[in-house]
């Protein structure tokens, strides 16, 4: 709303027309530093002379060590440098040949690079450039063969995937003339000029004019033009010496916009972010919903649920002017380079030694610092070379409010709370077992109501699933993910995906479906297949498709399903917007246990498996909803995580309820019978006398303990079942519970000292002599005497206040239950100081809960038994005033 381009124009005009003030800024900023240079072709001849495509290796190589740059760039190699024979990639598929874009199958793009020797051809190296290569910077497999030879030196030969192109429309293979097409050198312009023409580059690649692709990137800069006659260099842009005029030197450091061309939506402009800014090629945004922008969500032009309240920026780092290369920096950039803590000597916090800037400019390492994400297993040797959150942020400084801070930090990745939600849509599933009329897999998206891609669809966003993943420091933490599930047919031995063209052949017939496919799938007979019909959900349909594929000569047909986990690490929010409510996780409906829907149905009934080795602990379960939708639910218990307020052992509560209800039922029966008898037949009054039974201190500690225990029970049940007490702040109740426990322990210690010092301790010690017979007498009194109005079997005296049953009960409570409760409680509290204790929570907490149940049961019984004194309230009164009424017999 604020910054419409029109307004900026107005401002600019005002600036320019101002009578006084600073002169307006230049419209296109030439590089202030970069010297002029000539554009050279592959042979080092000025393109103005030769009219050939610009060679970045030659041109930029005039000053920079371009060979070094290309060799030190996983963006260029994309796995080719570590490629292996098909099926030899650890945890890979049978047709995977590397961990990178060149050789690792992307089941969402579906097409696969054909392994050497395969009879069926899908993508040869030139085809790969025309598909996967659209998001490849050049160099690597676009320039060199597997054995390192320049592709243009290979003689055209059909059959070798490196020199063969396959046309899926005709099914024909043809030998590729690399000499004619040229190759794609690493494209410096794509990342180092402000407005590279990426669309022209891609179009040129798709047209097979590989040699011109880098030149095409310069279209629009005024240096080169594409005419009907071919490419024309504009001599006017160059000086007499053949070098660029200074104003045409537009070289700059790579900006986030440069990175965004291939990686995802980057929006750093002031105009509202709109649907069209998130392009299909912004695959990181399409697959996870990540958008790098400092704009507030509420200022965007997207149709988002609750948008008015979303006044947070898409990414706080973008808002704070961080650019991609601030975290993903060149590994030898002296401004950023810092040795890892792992290898840095203990006595150093900062190593100031830097290589000279000139050396860096000559040989800038183009391997960029990277994290360790499930979707980018490429260059594992560089995983976590990126700065971690804690290397810039001091979490202790900002998380003082967080109880058990270190425990949380050890269990939960920063991203889990600081990327609480993805606000736009993301891909959910692709079902390649069937095809839409467009000849692609039907797909589903999460985070959107309606069909994704329509600007009118309401983006509701989604909560990423939190899965345990090993971090750089070796600690496994819960991190946010999107899961994309794909199903597809494989065939042959060794296994290969059924080629897209084969799928299209068996499903489609011109503009429609094959007649028998339509007949089998079209349940409502309307002549069209809607999304619920276009499913392999019956044996009949599966067999039909299998038969048709067999008809193409394909064997060993199977349906495979795989889940691709995508780490989410952008769209970071500041503390204000992070997940902070305790009960977001500490509740029945815990964020951490939250499952993620995978697909509306399970194609072919094939439960998918997780793809590759993602470092994720996959202890969760695939479940099917009543409507057939498939979901993945994490299993917290299997991860040895125990969340107070969420985790409960059902049997603990069952035993607890049984104990409580048993006591309660006994009291009801016993008390009811007493009431009944006393109403019918009032008991004889015994002669009573007042005895000073309880000293002031005894009463003080008793009532302190009583109140504390009741409060502990009240706060404990809130911690145990926060979902039942939504109005109460979990984050407040936990420290209150802890403090009360400390009061209880201190009170108990004082009281223990008092009882030892005064010798009163012996009151609690059952006397062995005659203990059983006395106990039986007391039991007999409760079972019979009390109903008859008999006097109590044992006189209560200040020297002997407790009857044998009380003695044994208190003996058990004081020696078993209380220590158990204090110990387990202390250890659970200790988790905040010694986070390593957290692993013991799974049994500490249930014990604590069970003992709490026993305390509750005891409390009920205890209160009831106070009514069994000489009068109903005599005991209660005695504990309050100190003066007890006792029967005046036998004394």
């Amino acid at each position, binding site marked *: *709303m*604020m910054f419409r381009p029109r*307004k900026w124009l*107005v*401002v600019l005009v*005002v600036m320019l027309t*101002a*009578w*006084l*003030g*600073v002169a307006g*800024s230049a419209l296109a*900023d030439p590089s202030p530093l970069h010297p002029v240079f000539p554009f050279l072709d592959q042979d080092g001849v000025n393109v103005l002379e030769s009219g050939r495509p610009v060679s970045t290796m030659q041109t930029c190589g005039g000053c920079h060590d371009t060979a070094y740059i290309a060799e030190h760039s996983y963006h260029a190699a994309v796995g080719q440098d570590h490629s292996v024979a098909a099926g030899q990639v650890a945890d890979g598929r049978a047709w995977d040949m590397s961990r990178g874009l060149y050789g690792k199958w992307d089941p969402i793009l579906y097409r696969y690079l054909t392994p050497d020797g395969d009879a069926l051809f899908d993508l040869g190296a030139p085809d790969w450039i025309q598909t996967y290569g659209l998001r490849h910077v050049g160099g690597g497999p676009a320039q060199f063969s597997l054995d390192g030879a320049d592709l243009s030196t290979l003689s055209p030969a059909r059959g070798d995937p490196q020199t063969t192109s396959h046309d899926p429309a005709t099914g024909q293979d043809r030998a590729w003339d690399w000499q004619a097409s040229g190759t794609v050198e690493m494209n410096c312009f794509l990342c180092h000029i402000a407005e590279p023409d990426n669309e022209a580059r891609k179009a040129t690649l798709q047209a097979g004019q590989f040699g011109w692709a880098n030149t095409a990137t310069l279209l629009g800069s005024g240096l080169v033009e594409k005419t009907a006659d071919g490419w024309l260099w504009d001599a006017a842009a160059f000086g007499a010496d053949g070098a660029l005029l200074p104003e045409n030197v537009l070289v700059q450091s790579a*900006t986030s916009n440069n990175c965004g061309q291939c990686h995802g939506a980057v929006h*750093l402009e*002031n105009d509202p972010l709109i649907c069209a800014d998130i392009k299909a090629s912004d695959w990181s945004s399409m697959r996870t919903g990540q958008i790098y922008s*400092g*704009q*507030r969500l*509420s200022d965007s032009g997207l149709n988002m649920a609750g948008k008015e309240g979303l*006044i947070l*920026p898409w990414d706080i780092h*973008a*808002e*704070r*002017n961080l*650019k991609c290369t601030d975290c993903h920096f060149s590994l030898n950039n002296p401004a950023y380079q810092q040795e890892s803590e792992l290898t840095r000597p203990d006595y150093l916090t900062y190593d100031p030694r830097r290589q000279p800037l000139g050396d860096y400019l000559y040989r800038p390492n183009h391997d960029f610092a990277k994290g360790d994400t499930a979707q980018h297993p490429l260059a594992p040797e560089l995983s976590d070379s990126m700065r971690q959150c804690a290397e810039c942020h001091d979490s202790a400084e900002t998380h*003082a*409010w967080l*109880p058990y801070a270190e425990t949380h930090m050890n269990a939960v990745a920063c991203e889990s709370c600081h990327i609480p939600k993805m606000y736009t849509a993301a891909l959910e599933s692709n079902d390649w077992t069937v095809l839409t009329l467009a000849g692609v897999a039907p797909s589903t998206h999460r985070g959107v109501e309606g069909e994704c891609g329509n600007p009118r669809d309401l983006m509701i966003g989604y909560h990423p699933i939190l899965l345990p993943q090993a971090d750089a420091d070796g600690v496994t933490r819960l991190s946010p993910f999107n899961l994309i599930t794909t199903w597809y047919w494989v065939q042959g031995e060794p296994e290969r995906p059924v080629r897209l063209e084969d799928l299209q052949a068996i499903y489609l017939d011109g503009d429609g479906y094959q007649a028998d496919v339509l007949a089998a799938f079209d349940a409502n007979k309307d002549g069209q297949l809607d999304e619920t019909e276009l499913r392999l959900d019956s044996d009949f349909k599966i067999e039909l498709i299998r038969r048709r594929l067999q008809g193409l000569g394909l064997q060993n047909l199977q349906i495979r399903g795989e889940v691709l986990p995508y780490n989410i690490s952008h769209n970071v929010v*500041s*503390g*204000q917007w992070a997940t902070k409510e305790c009960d977001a996780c500490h509740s029945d409906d815990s964020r951490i246990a939250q499952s993620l829907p995978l697909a509306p149905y399970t194609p072919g009934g094939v439960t998918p498996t997780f793809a590759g080795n993602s470092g994720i602990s996959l202890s969760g379960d695939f479940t099917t909803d009543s409507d057939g939708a498939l979901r993945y639910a994490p299993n917290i218990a299997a991860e040895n995580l125990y969340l107070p307020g969420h985790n409960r052992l059902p049997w603990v509560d069952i035993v607890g309820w049984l104990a409580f209800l048993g006591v309660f039922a006994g009291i009801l029966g016993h008390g009811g019978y007493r009431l009944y008898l006393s109403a019918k037949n009032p008991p004889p009054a015994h002669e009573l006398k007042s005895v000073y039974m309880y000293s*002031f201190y005894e*009463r*003080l500690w008793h*009532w*302190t303990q009583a*109140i*504390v225990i009741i*409060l502990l029970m009240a706060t404990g049940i809130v911690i145990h079942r926060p979902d039942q007490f939504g109005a109460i702040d979990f984050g*407040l109740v936990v*420290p*209150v519970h802890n*403090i*009360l426990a*400390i*009061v209880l322990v201190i*009170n108990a210690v004082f009281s223990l000292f008092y009882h030892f010092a005064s010798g009163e301790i012996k009151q609690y010690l059952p006397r062995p002599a005659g203990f059983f017979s006395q106990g039986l007498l007391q039991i007999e009194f409760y079972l019979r005497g009390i109903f008859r109005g008999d006097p109590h079997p044992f006189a209560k005296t200040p020297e002997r206040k407790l009857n044998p049953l009380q003695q044994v009960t208190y003996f058990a409570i004081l020696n078993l239950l209380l220590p158990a409760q204090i110990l387990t409680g202390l250890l659970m509290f200790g988790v905040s100081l010694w986070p390593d204790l957290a692993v013991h929570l799974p049994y500490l907490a249930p014990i604590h809960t069970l003992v709490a149940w026993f305390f509750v049961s005891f409390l009920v019984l205890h209160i009831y038994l106070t009514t069994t004194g000489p009068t109903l309230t005599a005991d209660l009164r005695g504990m*309050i*005033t*100190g*003066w007890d009424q006792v029967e005046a017999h036998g004394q």
Partner: protein
Amino acid sequence: MRKFKRRSWILGAMLTFGAIAAALFLFLPRQASNRDDPWAHVPKHPVHTEHTVTLLAGPFESGQEVTQACLQCHPNAGAQMLQSSHFTWEHGPYDLPGHDEPVLGGKKYVINNFCIGITSNWPPCTACHAGYGWEDETFDFSDVANIDCLVCHETTGTYVKKNGGYPAEGVDLAAVAQSVGNPTRSNCGSCHFNGGGGDAVKHGDLDTSLTFPNDELDVHMGKHDFVCTDCHRTQDHQIGGRSISVSMDTANQIACTDCHLATPHEDSRINNHTASVACQTCHIPEFARKLATKVEWDWSQAGLDIPQDPHEYLKIKGAFVYEDDVVPDYAWSNGEIERYILGDSIDPAQVTHMNSPTADITDPTARIWPFKIHRAMQIYDSEYNYLLVPKTYGEGGYWVDFDWGEAARLGAEATGLAYSGQYDFAPTDMYWPITHMVAPKEQALQCDTCHVENGEGILDWRALGYEGDPMFYGGRAARLLAAQSAVNSEGGAK
């Protein structure tokens, strides 16, 4: 014994609860609470006494009669108002650099680059005077009957003033008088929204859209329904606040910090800005968000018989440029200005600054403020090289005869300046601080509005005195230290 027992019971209960409460109080983690409570500073609105028929029966023949009726019950109000700048239109005197004699400020004396000056043009100007009958220099500023109570206190919305400040014909003075209450936005707005001769002309951040603003236009007056006096606190008819358009010192200022903390943000990175950036800079990203405001006025083109449009050209006034949704200009300001005083000489080749802020980056009390800059071409004596107040209104005025020479002569005569007989038009500009139309925090500027890597943010860092974007070049702390030590060494030398 009984008594003792009861006492021990109470004592025990107190001890027990006391121990538990004390433990909780001592050990419960405290929420860091430095959040301010601006509402604690907002004045309460007392219920205004109804001035019904019995109190002010009328009929009233004139405004003065109403005033006298008011003063019967509010005898102090008259003396208070006689001191009020809303009545005197006068501030000072001030000792101004470059002037031997103290100079007087206020609308009565200073000139601007809109309608220029009131001297010789009183009647239309004084239609907004809180008084009755100021039509020439003979107006009696000591007569309490000349005070206009109604313009600030009537609540019917039917009270209109005409030239000289008199009630317009047809105003039912009795009904208006009986309606009196605490001043509303409409009361203040009846003049302040219409400065410069029409709605939204002058300030850019004050216009009739603020009579009933929505939440987005002004968070205080819209969302929270503030009236002007909630911030412009008024005691004994002395109204808080002032503007550099008529005042020359920094007394009696209103600040956001009257209610808000100086560092109210959760994020310390943002709080670090408040020592150098005025709240308004981020929280008023644009002004004139509903109605366009005048940003340029070229008097030199007046007098042509060409098609007229109040937003582009009027024969009596010349050519204008109006803009809406204007991104302010930004300048260092500590509230102090350099003021053009009538008679000061000008360089007609340069822009003459009517009231430019004097502070710069080295002033620790200065902050970067948003301004509307109004630029004009206005008449000056091309031989003596000073600006003139032309007589525009009335007999011999430019608006009647379209004769600049005669208007200049009559105006000079009234202001006591010598007029050479030669006039021309010179460029001037005038700074209007932007402080109303505070947007909701959702619309405040973000980091990248100013801090943009390629330097295309809305702040021109070098023009402000920075070496470059302070995100990269560092803030002004070093500059302040250097300036401070320069001052110190200067002091030592003396």
